[in-house]
């Protein structure tokens, strides 16, 4: 799949330009954090990469793909988990069956990932009655079960309390350790520091910086990034 190349990517909704000519090359390996203020275009950029939105102009190229189904090798976790009205287990099985796995295969795999995210004891419970943090862990399990090469995460902890956030972050690290490329958005600098290896800093629809995490926080190259870092609240 990787590297992922964005070539002069633009996206407009009506007359409003949301992404303005972003070019970047995202390599396999490091955890990539797309950072920026609210409204910068982070979520839209991620949806363009994942193929949920079609760019107004420019291209999203997966260099490593063997002309196959690129969608099948990526998964996405959304800010607000969308759970189907069925059991936690069935939610994971649903994704696996769409990916062409048999029922028995799917159930085995689903139980495995539920175990890993700590939801095995809730497997039979309806997904929608789980807490917000549990639902987000379930969403991660559903994505992880597919064994994606790339996992997109859109502000995965924006609605969660600190304890749940910690759970989610350690699961993200486990997924990274299993060899899946992590690409996530956040507006939270602490999270960027904890989870990021490299930063794509987006401001007003433009890619302002694409640097390793250390350099970004020590000596930001742009005024926008410097301001964004300086304005961080304790």
């Amino acid at each position, binding site marked *: 799949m990787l590297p992922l190349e964005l070539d002069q990517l633009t996206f407009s909704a009506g007359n409003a330009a949301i992404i303005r000519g972003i070019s970047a090359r995202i390599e396999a390996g490091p955890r990539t954090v797309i950072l920026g203020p609210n409204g910068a275009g982070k979520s839209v950029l991620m949806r363009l990469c994942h193929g949920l939105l079609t760019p107004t102009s420019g291209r999203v190229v997966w260099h490593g793909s063997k002309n196959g189904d690129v969608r099948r090798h990526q*998964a996405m976790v959304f800010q607000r988990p*969308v759970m189907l009205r069925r059991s936690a287990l069935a939610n994971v099985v649903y994704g696996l069956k769409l990916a062409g796995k048999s029922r028995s295969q799917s159930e085995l795999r689903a139980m495995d990932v539920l175990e890993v995210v700590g939801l095995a004891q809730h497997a039979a419970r309806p997904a929608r*009655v789980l807490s917000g943090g549990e639902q987000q862990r379930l969403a991660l399990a559903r994505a992880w079960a597919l064994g994606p090469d790339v996992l997109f995460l859109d502000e995965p902890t924006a609605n969660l309390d600190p304890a749940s956030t910690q759970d989610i972050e350690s699961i993200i690290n486990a997924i990274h350790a299993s060899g899946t490329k992590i690409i996530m958005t956040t507006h939270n600098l602490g999270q960027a520091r904890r989870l990021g290896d490299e930063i794509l800093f987006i401001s007003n629809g433009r890619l302002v910086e694409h640097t390793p995490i250390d350099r970004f926080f020590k000596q930001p190259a742009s005024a926008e990034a410097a301001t964004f870092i300086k304005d961080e609240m304790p």
Partner: protein
Amino acid sequence: MNSLGEAFAAAWKLIAGFDAELAQVVGLSLQVSLSAVVIATLIGLPLGAMIAVERFPGRQTLIVLLNALMGLPPVVVGLVVYLLLSRAGPLGSLGILFTPTAMVIAQAVLITPIIAALSRQIIEDAWREYDEQLRSLGAQRLNAAMTLIWDTRFSLLTIVLAGFGRAAAEVGAVMIVGGNIDGVTRVMTTAIALETSKGDLPLALGLGIVLVTLVIVLNALAAIIREMALRRYG
């Protein structure tokens, strides 16, 4: 038989004693309206789901039309179905005018738009919530539509019950295409109309009580199902 109280007392005796004529009329009513609601659901539900998830030219017009058809006057439906089924009409050779079959057709025509329009609304609302998640998991349109129908099944069941209530309580259409023939096409509503004009208030009132009870039971059932589903599946 002038006072209301006497009429009520006589009506109650008919109901409590399982009066043969009353039972026959109630039975036919249920049979016709249940058949109509089954047919209307088989047509209206897939139609509503299709309009909810597909994008095609004229879609908005179709939705407006469908919503307008919810208020279709039963007598007009009766008249049109009558014209189609009458000896000189295009379907006259079937010879089904003034039979329960004709009544089923008329009621199905009456409530199909109701079921289609309301299920379109419910499924489209769910689609808005699920759209990105289902596409991310790789669901194709048909697959997504089935998922949405399954996930909104309790709300959809409420619609079906509402359709049944509307069919059972309707008088104009069945009167015209059924002819209110004693023992053949006489249903609760047409019997009430006739008996009232004949002055046989106990039978009319007895049927009226059964009809109103039926409508209340249906609505209670719908409420209970929704409540249960909400508690069970969130």
